[in-house]
């Protein structure tokens, strides 16, 4: 019975062990304890999706998870997308299609798209539109984000075929 617990988890492929307050959210843990500030807080009540990360490969709202719940988990944040300075096709596509303006919602969309495309590598436009409907953007009007994700789907498929 304690207000602090030690957690062990993997984030972006690296192992971490930290003592955390039980009430600390996973989003705050990522941002404050691990200094991975790419994940953003837009609402802290599970509506906007800016805090989206991959939790054991699934897209989740990190503001609705306690850090202690991530003990033993494998997390991926936006910082895991690029390979050094080599951008992930999703990131390139976002730039190509001007799918960001202020950029605050962008990491959340990228991680949502990453999870979605793993699940559905060749989506239709409508399927993309539905998949991102749990993420809010105030700048772009969503259209270029949908364009970018469709582009990335093509690019990722191309890479896969090439790898074969």
């Amino acid at each position: 019975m304690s207000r602090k617990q030690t957690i062990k988890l993997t984030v972006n492929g690296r192992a971490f062990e930290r003592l955390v307050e039980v009430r600390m959210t996973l989003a705050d843990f990522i941002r404050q304890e691990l200094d991975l500030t790419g994940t953003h807080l837009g609402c802290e009540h599970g509506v906007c999706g800016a805090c989206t990360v991959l939790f054991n490969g699934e897209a989740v709202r990190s503001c609705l998870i306690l850090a202690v719940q991530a003990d033993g988990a494998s997390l991926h944040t936006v910082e895991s997308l690029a390979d050094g300075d080599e951008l992930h096709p999703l990131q390139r596509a976002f730039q190509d299609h001007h799918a960001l303006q202020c950029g605050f919602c962008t990491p959340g969309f990228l991680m949502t798209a990453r999870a979605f495309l793993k699940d559905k590598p060749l989506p239709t436009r409508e399927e993309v539109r539905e998949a991102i409907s749990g993420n809010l953007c105030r700048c772009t009007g969503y259209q270029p984000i949908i364009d970018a994700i469709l582009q990335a789907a093509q690019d990722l498929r191309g890479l896969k075929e090439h790898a074969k």
Partner: protein
Amino acid sequence: MKPASFDYFAPTTLDETLELLHEYGDEAKILAGGQSLMPLMNLRLARPKIIVDINRLSGFDQIASTADGGLVIGALTRLRAVEKSALVREQNPLLAAAMPLIGHFQIRNRGTVGGSLAHADPAAELPALAVLLGCEFSLARTGGARVVTAADFFLGYMATAIEPGELLTEIRFPTWRPGAAWAMDEIARRKGDFALVGVALNAELDGTANLRDVAIVMFGVGGKPHRIESADSILKGRRVEPAVLRALGQAVAEEVEPDSDIHASAEYRKEVGGVLARRALESALARSKNGVKH
């Protein structure tokens, strides 16, 4: 918006869990998917002293067939697992159809069937389905267990029959009648939001134009899902024609007693509830006639 302080437990066995719930009674809040509880805690609208995180329990996330062809779903089953389950699609098309309506996929990744039902938001889809289908809820406590039927489970606005010290462990879905006509629909301000008003129904198709054993449950119309008692008497033995459908819509509008809030008035919910019920019947009929099972 940071939660207030609490003590945290993450038991790994059912017994441990039940002991904790027994010890702390109504000071304890169960944390499952967290999609409903965490927002309340972040907003400090909920300030539980004790959090019992049941995500470490194993064995409560199965989806299985029962001997009579129904389904039993563990309370900790993620909504996403239900959504993707081929078994659910096959054995309960209505349940399968409801899943994409619930929030967004990120929410369904964490939210659980038990959590959604225990939260009992009257505008939610799963409680309405449970009432419509006559589900059974297994509740465990130290030194015992009991089963509560859906009709007795939902008591009012976000209130259920779960007593302090009890844990919802699994939910049984009765056998789905093959060839049953069914429909589910809702009106929401945005897709994925809680419904302003919604309807779930199933029925037997008698020949090509008669429905019998019609069960209609409205949601978003008051503190809990509302079974339309008059449905059967209006439809029984009658050909389903426009006039009959209109009468049903009218009856639904008259029977439900919804609340008003900033998104819709009681009048709107009554009116549109009637419209949805009528359209749902039409759609159920059409789906049935076309032999479309899903």
